Protein backbone atom coordinates (compact mmCIF):
# COMPACT_ATOMS: atom_id res chain seq x y z
CA UNK A 1 0.00 0.00 0.00
CA UNK A 2 1.84 3.13 -1.15
CA UNK A 3 2.17 5.80 1.52
CA UNK A 4 4.86 7.82 -0.23
CA UNK A 5 3.75 10.54 -2.57
CA UNK A 6 5.51 11.20 -5.85
CA UNK A 7 6.80 14.53 -4.56
CA UNK A 8 8.46 12.88 -1.57
CA UNK A 9 10.07 10.37 -3.90
CA UNK A 10 11.43 13.13 -6.12
CA UNK A 11 12.75 15.09 -3.13
CA UNK A 12 14.45 12.05 -1.59
CA UNK A 13 15.97 11.06 -4.93
CA UNK A 14 17.26 14.60 -5.53
CA UNK A 15 18.86 14.73 -2.08
CA UNK A 16 20.45 11.29 -2.52
CA UNK A 17 21.76 12.21 -5.97
CA UNK A 18 23.25 15.43 -4.60
CA UNK A 19 24.98 13.53 -1.80
CA UNK A 20 26.39 11.01 -4.27
CA UNK A 21 27.58 13.76 -6.60
CA UNK A 22 29.28 15.56 -3.70
CA UNK A 23 30.98 12.28 -2.82
CA UNK A 24 32.32 11.83 -6.35
CA UNK A 25 33.58 15.42 -6.39
CA UNK A 26 35.11 15.52 -2.91
CA UNK A 27 36.58 12.07 -2.28
CA UNK A 28 39.69 11.15 -4.24
CA UNK A 29 39.84 7.56 -3.05
CA UNK A 30 38.59 5.33 -5.87
CA UNK A 31 36.64 2.97 -3.59
CA UNK A 32 34.68 5.91 -2.20
CA UNK A 33 34.06 7.22 -5.70
CA UNK A 34 32.53 3.87 -6.67
CA UNK A 35 30.32 3.92 -3.58
CA UNK A 36 29.11 7.43 -4.42
CA UNK A 37 28.33 6.27 -7.98
CA UNK A 38 26.21 3.48 -6.48
CA UNK A 39 24.33 6.03 -4.39
CA UNK A 40 23.62 8.10 -7.52
CA UNK A 41 22.42 5.04 -9.45
CA UNK A 42 20.10 4.17 -6.57
CA UNK A 43 18.62 7.67 -6.62
CA UNK A 44 17.82 7.43 -10.34
CA UNK A 45 16.34 3.96 -9.88
CA UNK A 46 14.13 5.37 -7.12
CA UNK A 47 12.84 8.03 -9.54
CA UNK A 48 12.01 5.34 -12.10
CA UNK A 49 10.10 3.21 -9.59
CA UNK A 50 8.22 6.23 -8.25
CA UNK A 51 7.21 7.33 -11.73
CA UNK A 52 6.09 3.79 -12.55
CA UNK A 53 3.89 3.78 -9.45
CA UNK A 54 2.58 7.26 -10.27
CA UNK A 55 1.44 6.43 -13.81
CA UNK A 56 0.79 2.74 -13.06
CA UNK A 57 3.24 1.47 -15.64
CA UNK A 58 5.50 -1.55 -15.26
CA UNK A 59 8.23 0.10 -17.36
CA UNK A 60 9.59 1.86 -14.29
CA UNK A 61 10.44 -1.40 -12.57
CA UNK A 62 11.81 -2.83 -15.82
CA UNK A 63 14.21 0.13 -15.89
CA UNK A 64 15.01 -0.58 -12.23
CA UNK A 65 16.11 -4.11 -13.15
CA UNK A 66 18.25 -2.76 -16.00
CA UNK A 67 19.88 -0.21 -13.68
CA UNK A 68 20.61 -3.04 -11.24
CA UNK A 69 22.40 -5.04 -13.93
CA UNK A 70 24.30 -1.94 -15.03
CA UNK A 71 25.38 -1.21 -11.45
CA UNK A 72 26.59 -4.79 -11.00
CA UNK A 73 28.72 -4.63 -14.17
CA UNK A 74 30.06 -1.17 -13.35
CA UNK A 75 31.03 -2.18 -9.81
CA UNK A 76 32.71 -5.39 -10.96
CA UNK A 77 34.81 -3.67 -13.63
CA UNK A 78 35.67 -0.74 -11.38
CA UNK A 79 36.79 -2.96 -8.53
CA UNK A 80 38.80 -5.08 -10.97
CA UNK A 81 40.59 -1.93 -12.15
CA UNK A 82 41.25 -0.94 -8.53
CA UNK A 83 42.69 -4.36 -7.69
CA UNK A 84 44.82 -4.22 -10.85
CA UNK A 85 46.21 -0.79 -9.98
CA UNK A 86 46.88 -1.87 -6.42
CA UNK A 87 48.61 -5.04 -7.61
CA UNK A 88 51.19 -2.99 -9.50
CA UNK A 89 52.49 -1.66 -6.20
CA UNK A 90 50.68 1.67 -6.32
CA UNK A 91 50.86 2.97 -2.74
CA UNK A 92 47.73 5.11 -2.85
CA UNK A 93 44.28 4.78 -4.41
CA UNK A 94 44.15 8.45 -5.36
CA UNK A 95 42.18 8.74 -8.60
CA UNK A 96 44.43 11.46 -10.02
CA UNK A 97 47.47 9.19 -10.03
CA UNK A 98 45.84 6.46 -12.08
CA UNK A 99 46.00 8.06 -15.50
CA UNK A 100 47.94 5.25 -17.16
CA UNK A 101 46.38 1.83 -17.67
CA UNK A 102 49.52 0.18 -19.16
CA UNK A 103 47.33 -2.77 -20.12
Amino acid at each position, binding site marked *: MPVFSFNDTLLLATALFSVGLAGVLVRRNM*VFMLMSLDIMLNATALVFVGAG*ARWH*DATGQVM*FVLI*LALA*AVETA*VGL*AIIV*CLHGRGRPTLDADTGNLMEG
Partner: protein
Amino acid sequence: MHTLALLAAGVALVGAIMVITRRVAVHAVLYLVVTLLALAAVLVMLGASFAAMLEIIIYAGAIMVLFVFVIMMLNLGQTDSAREKQWLRPRAWCGPGILATIVCAELLYCLSPLSGPEPALTPVTAHDVGLSLFGRYVLVVELVSFLLLAGLVSAFYIGRNRAGGH
Protein backbone atom coordinates in the same frame (compact mmCIF):
# COMPACT_ATOMS: atom_id res chain seq x y z
CA MET B 1 2.28 5.34 8.48
CA HIS B 2 3.66 8.60 7.13
CA THR B 3 6.04 8.66 10.09
CA LEU B 4 7.47 5.34 8.95
CA ALA B 5 8.01 6.72 5.45
CA LEU B 6 9.81 9.80 6.77
CA LEU B 7 11.92 7.59 9.05
CA ALA B 8 13.03 5.35 6.18
CA ALA B 9 13.85 8.33 3.97
CA GLY B 10 15.78 10.01 6.77
CA VAL B 11 17.79 6.87 7.51
CA ALA B 12 18.67 6.57 3.81
CA LEU B 13 19.79 10.19 3.60
CA VAL B 14 21.82 10.19 6.84
CA GLY B 15 23.44 6.90 5.83
CA ALA B 16 24.44 8.32 2.45
CA ILE B 17 25.96 11.39 4.11
CA MET B 18 27.88 9.14 6.50
CA VAL B 19 29.17 7.09 3.55
CA ILE B 20 30.92 10.02 1.90
CA THR B 21 32.40 11.42 5.12
CA ARG B 22 33.98 8.31 6.66
CA ARG B 23 37.74 7.85 6.63
CA VAL B 24 37.78 4.06 6.94
CA ALA B 25 36.40 2.21 3.93
CA VAL B 26 34.79 -0.65 5.88
CA HIS B 27 32.71 1.76 7.96
CA ALA B 28 31.52 3.41 4.75
CA VAL B 29 30.51 0.02 3.35
CA LEU B 30 28.48 -0.74 6.47
CA TYR B 31 26.71 2.62 6.26
CA LEU B 32 26.04 1.97 2.58
CA VAL B 33 24.38 -1.34 3.44
CA VAL B 34 22.14 0.51 5.92
CA THR B 35 21.31 3.07 3.21
CA LEU B 36 20.36 0.37 0.73
CA LEU B 37 18.13 -1.41 3.24
CA ALA B 38 16.36 1.87 4.01
CA LEU B 39 15.89 2.42 0.28
CA ALA B 40 14.38 -1.05 0.05
CA ALA B 41 11.90 -0.01 2.74
CA VAL B 42 11.10 3.11 0.68
CA LEU B 43 10.49 0.92 -2.37
CA VAL B 44 8.11 -1.28 -0.36
CA MET B 45 6.21 1.85 0.66
CA LEU B 46 5.99 2.79 -3.02
CA GLY B 47 4.26 -0.52 -3.65
CA ALA B 48 7.19 -2.12 -5.50
CA SER B 49 7.89 -5.17 -3.35
CA PHE B 50 9.62 -7.03 -6.17
CA ALA B 51 12.07 -4.19 -6.72
CA ALA B 52 12.71 -4.03 -2.97
CA MET B 53 13.57 -7.73 -2.84
CA LEU B 54 15.94 -7.29 -5.81
CA GLU B 55 17.53 -4.33 -4.06
CA ILE B 56 18.18 -6.37 -0.92
CA ILE B 57 19.41 -9.50 -2.72
CA ILE B 58 21.57 -7.95 -5.44
CA TYR B 59 22.65 -4.60 -4.04
CA ALA B 60 22.89 -5.16 -0.29
CA GLY B 61 23.95 -8.78 -0.84
CA ALA B 62 26.08 -9.27 -3.91
CA ILE B 63 27.55 -5.87 -4.70
CA MET B 64 28.37 -5.05 -1.09
CA VAL B 65 30.09 -8.43 -0.69
CA LEU B 66 32.22 -7.48 -3.72
CA PHE B 67 33.16 -4.23 -2.01
CA VAL B 68 34.03 -5.99 1.25
CA PHE B 69 36.16 -8.60 -0.52
CA VAL B 70 38.10 -5.99 -2.46
CA ILE B 71 38.69 -3.87 0.65
CA MET B 72 39.94 -6.97 2.45
CA MET B 73 42.30 -7.73 -0.45
CA LEU B 74 43.61 -4.18 -0.65
CA ASN B 75 44.33 -3.93 3.09
CA LEU B 76 43.70 -0.19 2.97
CA GLY B 77 43.90 0.68 6.64
CA GLN B 78 44.33 4.40 7.27
CA THR B 79 45.85 5.47 3.96
CA ASP B 80 44.27 8.85 3.34
CA SER B 81 46.07 11.48 1.37
CA ALA B 82 46.58 14.86 2.98
CA ARG B 83 44.51 16.53 0.26
CA GLU B 84 41.45 14.47 1.11
CA LYS B 85 41.73 15.43 4.78
CA GLN B 86 41.95 19.03 3.66
CA TRP B 87 38.79 18.59 1.55
CA LEU B 88 36.85 17.12 4.46
CA ARG B 89 37.54 20.03 6.80
CA PRO B 90 34.47 22.22 7.40
CA ARG B 91 36.34 25.33 6.27
CA ALA B 92 36.68 23.85 2.78
CA TRP B 93 33.04 23.00 2.07
CA CYS B 94 31.30 25.66 4.17
CA GLY B 95 31.16 28.36 1.45
CA PRO B 96 30.12 26.12 -1.48
CA GLY B 97 27.64 24.38 0.80
CA ILE B 98 25.92 27.64 1.75
CA LEU B 99 25.76 28.79 -1.88
CA ALA B 100 24.38 25.43 -3.02
CA THR B 101 21.77 25.56 -0.24
CA ILE B 102 20.62 29.01 -1.42
CA VAL B 103 20.31 27.83 -5.03
CA CYS B 104 18.50 24.65 -3.95
CA ALA B 105 16.04 26.66 -1.83
CA GLU B 106 15.30 28.95 -4.80
CA LEU B 107 14.77 25.92 -7.02
CA LEU B 108 12.37 24.28 -4.58
CA TYR B 109 10.51 27.57 -4.14
CA CYS B 110 10.08 28.07 -7.89
CA LEU B 111 9.00 24.53 -8.73
CA SER B 112 5.26 25.06 -8.98
CA PRO B 113 4.43 21.57 -10.34
CA LEU B 114 5.75 20.14 -7.08
CA SER B 115 2.95 21.84 -5.14
CA GLY B 116 -0.56 20.73 -5.92
CA PRO B 117 -3.01 17.87 -5.65
CA GLU B 118 -1.84 14.59 -7.00
CA PRO B 119 -3.42 11.16 -7.37
CA ALA B 120 -2.58 8.35 -5.04
CA LEU B 121 0.13 5.94 -6.13
CA THR B 122 -0.96 2.53 -7.32
CA PRO B 123 1.25 -0.49 -6.67
CA VAL B 124 2.71 -2.34 -9.65
CA THR B 125 2.93 -6.06 -9.02
CA ALA B 126 5.70 -8.42 -10.09
CA HIS B 127 3.22 -10.02 -12.48
CA ASP B 128 2.99 -6.84 -14.54
CA VAL B 129 6.75 -6.36 -14.41
CA GLY B 130 7.40 -9.89 -15.70
CA LEU B 131 4.88 -9.52 -18.50
CA SER B 132 6.38 -6.21 -19.54
CA LEU B 133 10.00 -7.36 -19.22
CA PHE B 134 9.66 -10.53 -21.27
CA GLY B 135 6.96 -9.24 -23.60
CA ARG B 136 7.70 -5.75 -24.88
CA TYR B 137 11.27 -5.45 -23.62
CA VAL B 138 12.67 -8.88 -24.43
CA LEU B 139 15.24 -7.33 -26.76
CA VAL B 140 16.51 -5.18 -23.87
CA VAL B 141 17.03 -8.35 -21.83
CA GLU B 142 19.27 -9.67 -24.59
CA LEU B 143 21.17 -6.38 -24.66
CA VAL B 144 21.68 -6.64 -20.90
CA SER B 145 23.11 -10.11 -21.42
CA PHE B 146 25.60 -8.57 -23.88
CA LEU B 147 26.48 -5.96 -21.26
CA LEU B 148 27.05 -8.63 -18.61
CA LEU B 149 29.23 -10.61 -21.02
CA ALA B 150 31.29 -7.50 -21.77
CA GLY B 151 31.74 -6.84 -18.07
CA LEU B 152 32.75 -10.44 -17.44
CA VAL B 153 35.31 -10.41 -20.24
CA SER B 154 36.82 -7.07 -19.21
CA ALA B 155 37.05 -8.02 -15.53
CA PHE B 156 38.66 -11.33 -16.51
CA TYR B 157 41.16 -9.55 -18.78
CA ILE B 158 42.14 -6.99 -16.16
CA GLY B 159 42.54 -9.68 -13.52
CA ARG B 160 44.57 -11.89 -15.86
CA ASN B 161 47.29 -9.25 -16.17
CA ARG B 162 47.64 -9.10 -12.42
CA ALA B 163 47.85 -12.90 -12.13
CA GLY B 164 50.47 -13.00 -14.90
CA GLY B 165 52.60 -10.37 -13.21
CA HIS B 166 53.15 -12.49 -10.11
